[in-house]
């Protein structure tokens, strides 16, 4: 697995893929979708697909691919090696969603939540397989959110393909287990050798599992909190763990779409009370009644100063 395209710029989302086996272009194929790194506050989320001809399903079983969570890291590396050796009939593709992509998606003005991001990534990968000429007939997906809704969404998106969405699909269908191994191996490697875009000097790589409840991760997060910038791009800013720490330890930053209410905010924004539109104006009440700055200046947000 060559991770260099992602490592060259780990700010963005990146797709890695194996060669498409020739059999997959001619024979009916099945495809499994799974993800790794959904929960951690650190590092990327990796989506993986694996596909093989329906007729080769049994051979995949013989590789003893199993749910990636039940395996040790060494066992996973070993299984990935086996999958790679079976490239005459097994293909895979990965979408690495960088932590920066996750942060900017979830925190942008029109919020794009993790479920939507996950669904769209899965759809993108299935579409990639179709575009590459893989004769897809069956798709197996581990669920994100309610299974039947997700299944309907995928079935509508890909008419003519039998879509099965199941919780714990990675332990039920070998092709999903295979996808899960690809995704997990990629994430492990990326996290282990993370290239920090920021100049942090000798970075302490003892960040543990990256899950919010890991004490090592917590210590690391506290250590690398910058009062102005917050965190390196390795951290998912949209995670409440990161946000809580930034709220308490870093400088407060105000954004235009912050939720703000109350009279003070209204006053600051120069909002008028609804009532003021109904009553006749009371002369002299308005401080600026005598002098109103010309709209040339107000439209350009220009004002005179009485002190610097």
């Amino acid at each position, binding site marked *: 697995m060559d991770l260099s395209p992602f490592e060259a710029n780990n700010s963005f989302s990146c797709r890695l893929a194996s060669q498409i086996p020739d059999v997959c272009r001619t024979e009916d194929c099945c495809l499994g979708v799974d993800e790794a790194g959904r929960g951690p506050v650190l590092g990327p989320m990796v989506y993986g697909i694996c596909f093989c001809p329906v007729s080769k399903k049994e051979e995949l079983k013989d590789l003893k691919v199993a749910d990636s969570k039940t395996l040790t890291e060494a066992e996973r590396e070993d299984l990935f090696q086996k999958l790679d050796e079976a490239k005459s009939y097994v293909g895979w593709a990965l979408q690495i969603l960088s932590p920066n992509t996750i942060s900017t998606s979830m925190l942008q003005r029109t919020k794009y939540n993790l479920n939507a991001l996950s669904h769209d990534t899965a759809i993108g990968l299935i579409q990639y397989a179709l575009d590459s000429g893989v004769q897809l007939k069956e798709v197996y997906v581990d669920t994100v959110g309610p299974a039947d809704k997700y299944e309907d969404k995928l079935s509508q998106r890909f008419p003519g393909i039998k879509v099965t969405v199941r919780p714990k699909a990675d332990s039920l269908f070998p092709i999903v287990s295979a996808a899960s191994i690809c995704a997990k191996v990629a994430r492990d490697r990326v996290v282990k050798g993370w290239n920090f875009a920021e100049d942090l000097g000798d970075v302490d790589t003892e960040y543990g599992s990256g899950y919010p409840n890991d004490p090592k991760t917590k210590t690391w997060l506290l250590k690398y909190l910058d009062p102005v910038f917050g965190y390196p791009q390795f951290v998912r800013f949209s995670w409440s763990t990161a946000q809580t720490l930034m709220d308490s330890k870093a400088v407060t930053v*105000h954004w235009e779409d912050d*939720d703000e209410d109350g009279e003070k905010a209204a006053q600051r924004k120069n909002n008028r009370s609804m009532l003021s539109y109904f009553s*006749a104006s009371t002369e002299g009440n308005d401080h600026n009644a005598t002098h109103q700055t010309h709209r040339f*200046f107000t439209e350009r947000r220009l*004002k*005179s100063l009485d002190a610097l």
Partner: protein
Amino acid sequence: MAAKKKRAPNVQNDSWVVIAADSAIHTQKHDRDADFVKLRNPSTDAACLYMLGCGDAQLYEVKAFEEDFHSWFVGQTVQRDGRLVFVTPMDPLFLILPYFIKSGKEAKFQPVDQVVTDEEFPACSRLLSCTRSLASLQHIAEEKEAGSTKFHRYSEEKTMNWLKKKVERTVVALKRRNISVGEGVKSTTYVRVKSEPDSHEEDYLRYAHGLISEYISADLSRALLKHLELPELLSPKETEPPSKKRKLSDNPVEAGEDYTKFNSADFVRKPPKKMTAAQKTLAKVDKTGMKPMSSFFSPKVKAEKN
């Protein structure tokens, strides 16, 4: 999602982001550095910040672009206020004019340094060192020379003509810059792409007059409007009907009704007034089993035992 953030007051900072012409801060030629000074704003009559260029040769006005949610990254530091200060050349005559109007009431010819003095803003005398000042006094005052000294007297007629020229030149500038002057939707976020074809000459004149009015007193602004032969616009506030609130008066407050008449013997209760629709519906409600409100406040009547 995020907790409500508190807004800390913007503390005074010791650096600013300023855009200024090189000429304003060029220090080699003169012994005196450029200097921020407080002077009387001719439009608001309040203290306002201006800048005098090196050697007081030129006057600059100081305007700040200020909008919420802005900050600067300056080198390796963060500047909290996203303020952008503009230092732009300004005709010193606008600031000198109010002093001439004030002394003009005496209708005497006076030397300039007697006219332009202000206890509150002593820096105002420095305005006279500006290269343009003395030469341009003829636009607002009549001159008399006696020996080597010049004497001046404010002239409203000259001033009006001078201001009219300013307005006309502003109109030219507005047209050249394609600045939209028509009464359209006033939005700060919409950028008007093209100047509206129906912008008439009057719109331009009115807009320019408004801009010039930022630099002169309200009285002068009205006089200028007349001089430009533009009808005064009524603000929507003035066209509204008067408020229905009762006017306060200085007369002693008296009871609207004489309640003592209820005590007299010949007092007869008036028949009950017509009930409102709401009262009627209330009256129709089935009240069986309901105690009157007053029963809750009167002493308890011991229930009789059967």
